[in-house]
């Protein structure tokens, strides 16, 4: 399958990339790693007349820790993040980066691309929202930093202006007593998650001070529920509270029935993933080094 013909630009600098995006306002598509975009172009989902390939902006590929925040260049590949010490230090990032599709896709795919695509089932939007991450967005007008929860406004839709590029992702590192986990349910490794859950739990004296629960594949964007998070706060996060929180957050979700599964299957799977991710987050909050892969069903 061939993509439809397109004009191709390969800027050598960020300024050049931004100028191109501005010059072709709204009519240019940014190509990062291409692991979601190229299949869409081949399947001719949407029209892509002009491609701005930012793959040579090597300055956007880095992982730097400054204080309690890690700064990840938008063009950093999933495989680089999965192989970095960061993936062990903040295991949630390892869950996401090391679990996206397969090694081949992780070679090419980028964190910025994974966010900008804003696929409701994809790993980064759910994982980074769980982590409370922010996206640094650069345009000819300057730089602004947007929370991932505000960045993605709908299915495949961000609040980015047509001449604006995600250039960095900032992830607050969890302090002692905080743990997080992300688990997806997939039909097979290369497939997008059917559904997924990310849970972050901050403990103080064995009691939950703060919780975040985010669902993927549960609607047109990731889903959160203040009530579900409140159900964990102030408790020791036992099985009862986790089950209650899972019930509440899945109640706020509207997973679509599709080829990946019925709505009732997805709701049942989401409840179970929230509990499992919650248990794993809890173990990590207590300082245990736990890992575990995705679920296949």
């Amino acid at each position: 399958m061939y993509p439809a013909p397109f004009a191709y630009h390969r800027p050598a600098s960020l300024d050049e990339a931004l100028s191109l995006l501005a010059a072709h306002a709204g009519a240019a598509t940014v190509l990062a790693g291409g692991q979601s975009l190229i299949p869409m172009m081949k399947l001719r989902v949407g029209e892509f007349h002009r491609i701005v390939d930012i793959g040579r902006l090597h300055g956007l590929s880095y992982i730097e820790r400054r204080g309690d925040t890690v700064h990840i260049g938008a063009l950093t590949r999933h495989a680089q993040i999965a192989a970095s010490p960061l993936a062990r230090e903040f295991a949630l990032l390892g869950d996401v980066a090391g679990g996206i599709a397969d090694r081949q896709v992780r070679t090419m795919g980028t964190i910025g691309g994974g966010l900008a695509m804003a696929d409701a089932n994809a790993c980064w939007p759910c994982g980074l929202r769980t982590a409370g991450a922010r996206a640094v967005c650069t345009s000819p007008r300057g730089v602004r930093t947007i929370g991932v929860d505000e960045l993605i406004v709908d299915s495949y839709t961000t609040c980015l202006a047509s001449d604006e590029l995600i250039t960095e992702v900032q992830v607050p590192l969890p302090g002692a007593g905080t743990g997080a986990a992300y688990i997806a349910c997939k039909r097979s490794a290369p497939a997008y998650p059917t559904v997924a859950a990310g849970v972050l739990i901050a403990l103080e004296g064995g009691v939950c001070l703060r919780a975040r629960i985010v669902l993927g594949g549960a609607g047109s964007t990731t889903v959160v529920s203040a009530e579900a998070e409140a159900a964990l706060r102030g408790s020791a996060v036992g099985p009862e509270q986790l089950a209650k929180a899972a019930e509440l957050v899945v109640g706020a979700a509207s997973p679509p029935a599709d080829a990946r599964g019925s709505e009732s299957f997805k709701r049942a799977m989401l409840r179970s993933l929230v509990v499992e991710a919650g248990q794993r987050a809890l173990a990590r909050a207590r300082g245990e080094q736990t890992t575990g892969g995705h679920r296949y069903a």
Partner: protein
Amino acid sequence: MPETIQPVFVEVVVNGYTYQREVEPRLLLVELLREELGLTGTHVGCDTSYCGACTVLLDGRPVKSCTVLAVQADGSAIETVEGLERDGELHPLQAAFSEHHALQCGYCTPGMLMACKSLLDENPAPGREAIRKGIAGNVCRCTGYQNILAAVEDAATKLRGA
């Protein structure tokens, strides 16, 4: 009026040989290899980034060449299945696939071999679980994978001894 699409100059080193071509921007890496360079060892399976039959190594890392544009690979070194054999000697992975009957129809084999090569380059002594994860992006509809796992373990042992 639709504008004329400008071709793009691409230079790649494939299995040690340098090739230069002017290509349409939409040309996929797998098509550059097969149609332009005549290297038909790399197979197109699903053509949707699912099956891994088209796996090649791009600067030493595995990629699905049906999901990489040729222009993205410009300036890179590429290894394909044709580059595994040296001086008439099969690569230890190829020999192990043969010995262990790690293929039946053979359609997935070029991609499987390249995925396994990159796995062993990264991790010379993978356990069975690491091999399973390492080839999670490669679908084989014949073997049930058991003989592939055995072949990779055997090749890893031989490569470590060499």
